[in-house]
């Protein structure tokens, strides 16, 4: 076969999110890759500049559906540092518990998605079934499965009751047993090993060169974790380890994530058992002094960074969000070259991409060259004329 262009996305069963790859393939081998990321610009950063600190947190939570706690935590952490307020230890512990539960549900979700990308739907069903336990715990603690709404500037919004603590502790042993089973499954499922080992390899040097973060970097032996290297919350008090691996391929990333699942379970247990008494929030001032902060947070997918600038009002002057997916994209584009066409979904899924969170720009291309509001009927008409001009594909 000559070189063909395989369009993947923005609508494709492999990627449930809006991204477009134009894969130039020679038979089953990938020669080149063209990326188009910005399909879902939502203007969240601009919207955040128009809301005060109370109202901005629910907005920032909605940057991402899976790491919702990460975004609000990163922002709240930064603002608290600008305001120079110390949040009570109990609030720190609760934030850590939610953060680690979130990491667990994110990694379980990822394991299922990765298995689904190689057609191993059974593991997908099982991990998502067990993920429900984590989600139930989160729902009981915060009141919602996805957007927990736990954070506010100055602490957390609701306290944990002793009953919630004991239910969560009861669920942990079962979850840990399941995690050990996944370790077994990943290591003796032959088809899974065939598809994961040696696929999407990144060396340590490449990771450092392209600036990959999170489990992608740790799988290549880069021993870096914002929770340890720029500690926040209570990660300095809790005994835990940074999980690294030397494989550097999709299998390595799987190992790192399963290892982190275990570490997270341990952190959650420690925090639940050693939950200090006291208030869960302090009264935060309405107005933040002038300042700039670069708030780093280890989200499940890697290092998340919020740059916040305040100007002495009750609103931020600028907030800039760098999601881990953006940092990992370059490495994906690089390690896809010379791989098999069949490996695209699993390599892309291996960084756990979250594309709508990543979109920060949008390209406008209107006939008149002017942006404006188009009604639905106009849009329809425009689509019809476009199709008529283009003719059948």
């Amino acid at each position, binding site marked *: 076969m000559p070189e063909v262009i395989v369009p993947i996305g923005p609508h494709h069963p492999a990627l449930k999110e809006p991204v477009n790859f134009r894969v130039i393939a020679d038979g089953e081998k990938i020669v080149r890759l063209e990326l188009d990321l910005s399909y879902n610009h939502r203007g969240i950063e601009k919207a955040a500049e128009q*809301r005060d600190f*109370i*109202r901005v947190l*629910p*907005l920032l939570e909605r940057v991402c559906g899976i790491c919702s706690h990460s975004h609000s935590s990163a922002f709240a952490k930064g603002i608290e540092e600008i305001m120079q307020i110390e949040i009570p230890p109990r609030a720190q512990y609760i934030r850590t518990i939610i953060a680690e539960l979130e990491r667990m549900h994110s990694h379980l979700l990822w394991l299922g998605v990765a298995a689904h990308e190689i057609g191993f739907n*059974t*593991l997908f069903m*099982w991990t998502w*079934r067990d993920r*429900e336990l984590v989600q*139930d715990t989160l*729902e*009981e*603690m*915060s*009141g*919602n499965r996805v*957007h927990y*709404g736990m954070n*506010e500037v100055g602490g957390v*919004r*609701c306290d944990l009751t002793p009953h919630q603590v004991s239910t969560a502790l009861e669920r942990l042993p079962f979850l840990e047993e399941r995690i050990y*089973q996944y370790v*077994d*499954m990943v290591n*003796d*499922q032959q088809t899974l090993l065939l598809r994961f080992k040696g696929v999407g390899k990144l060396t340590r040097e490449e990771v450092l060169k392209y600036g990959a973060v999170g489990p992608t970097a740790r799988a290549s032996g880069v021993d870096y974790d914002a929770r340890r290297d720029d500690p926040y919350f209570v990660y300095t008090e809790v005994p835990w380890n940074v999980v690294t691996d030397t494989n550097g391929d999709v299998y390595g990333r799987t190992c790192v994530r399963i290892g982190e699942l275990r570490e997270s379970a341990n952190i959650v247990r420690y925090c639940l058992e050693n939950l200090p008494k006291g208030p869960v929030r302090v009264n935060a001032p309405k107005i933040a002094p002038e300042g700039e902060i670069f708030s780093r947070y280890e989200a499940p997918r890697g290092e998340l960074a919020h740059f916040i600038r305040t100007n002495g009002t009750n609103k931020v002057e600028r907030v800039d969000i760098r999601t881990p997916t953006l940092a990992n994209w370059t490495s994906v584009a690089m390690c896809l070259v010379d791989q098999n066409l069949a490996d695209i979904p699993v390599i892309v899924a291996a960084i756990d991409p979250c594309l709508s969170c990543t979109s920060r720009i949008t390209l406008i291309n209107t006939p008149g060259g002017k942006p404006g509001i188009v009604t639905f009927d106009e849009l329809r008409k425009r689509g019809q004329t476009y199709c008529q001009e283009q003719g059948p594909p």
Partner: protein
Amino acid sequence: MSVLKEMFRNLLSKPFTILYPKEPVPIPDRFRGRVAIRDEKCIGCSKCSVVCSVQCISMVDSPKEIEFKDKILMRKKKPQLKLFRCIRCGLCERHCPTGAIYLKNELSDSGTDREVVVI
């Protein structure tokens, strides 16, 4: 082997799925569901409409005498909430001084009419 073991254990055990409309789904106490307002408690302070993240709460005229901290207050306004604009973030409940506006732990319906209100 662990995969096969789990497979056949599942084959013989009950499915995990809850057949939702037929079987009830447990809803925790803290669940943030449909918004409701206790009219007899609201003192009309407008805090909820200020903190509302999507600005779906507006204050409408509703003069009434309200007992608050052993005093009788004369309230002028009370909140009116656009149900399907609400994202149920719970900020109004968190900031309400009297507990007049709150989120029930029952599912909120969904709809497309933006003007449906809760009084």
